[in-house]
């Protein structure tokens, strides 16, 4: 008796399940199709493919509060007239807008590093894009898990 009951339910459920699976697959496809604004922006700025290298980008692995996330970076550069980092862009791919900040460096600084605090609306990647004086670009990214988002609602 018990077996029979179970059979009926499962038979009915098959259609339901199939529909569910199909629609959820569709939804993930839709979500995946959403363009990565930060990467798009990087392409716009650099006008070419940018190599991912190991720049020092210090962000927490887990941010409890997305309102105040400390970000610092340190790019190894002699900062002389012939070889220095001109601009550093900070971008995030999960925020309403990909741009976070743009830093303009000069040779007077002697080092290429900076620290600030940013907002993160959800778990996402933070990108660092550096432009050298010879027109070359380098980038790195780091994932931050966010417990409480920081962009208001």
């Amino acid at each position, binding site marked *: 008796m018990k077996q029979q009951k179970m059979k009926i339910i499962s038979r009915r459920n098959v259609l339901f399940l199939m529909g569910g699976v199909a629609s959820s697959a569709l939804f993930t496809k839709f979500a995946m199709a959403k363009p990565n604004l930060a990467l798009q922006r990087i392409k716009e700025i650099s006008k070419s493919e940018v190599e991912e290298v190991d720049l020092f980008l210090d962000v927490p692995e887990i941010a409890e509060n997305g309102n105040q996330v400390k970000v610092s970076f340190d790019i190894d550069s002699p900062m002389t007239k012939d070889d220095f980092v001109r601009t550093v862009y900070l971008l995030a791919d999960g925020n309403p807008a990909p741009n976070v900040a743009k830093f303009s460096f*000069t040779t*007077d*600084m*002697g080092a290429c590093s900076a*620290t*600030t*605090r940013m*907002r993160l609306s959800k778990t996402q990647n933070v990108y660092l894009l550096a432009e050298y004086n010879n027109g070359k670009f380098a980038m790195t990214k780091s994932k931050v898990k966010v417990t409480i988002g920081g962009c208001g609602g």
Partner: protein
Amino acid sequence: MSKIKPRGKVPKKAAIDEIIEIKTLIRHPMHSGRMKDKDGKNIPKRIINKFLVKFNGKQVFGMDLEPSISTNPYIAFPFKAKESGTFDFEWTDDNGEKYIMSRRMDVS
């Protein structure tokens, strides 16, 4: 609303070729334009959009800020001390106001 007040920390004395760290903070709400107030109305966007540092009149560091920067923007950056002089810091608000601060540094 609390008054907008810039603060900064620059070493008073530095040795030649020493790389010092300058820390600045400005009290500012940095309304991103997405937050809502108690009545559910949107708070209009109002942020600090530009930060400039001059040393003896020459620009040494600049930063463009976006709404993704936190309330009370904190900015720290390095500087290589070569000569005595004055730092001029300038923050620009969305409403056109500028907040200015100066700090003196002696190099020996």
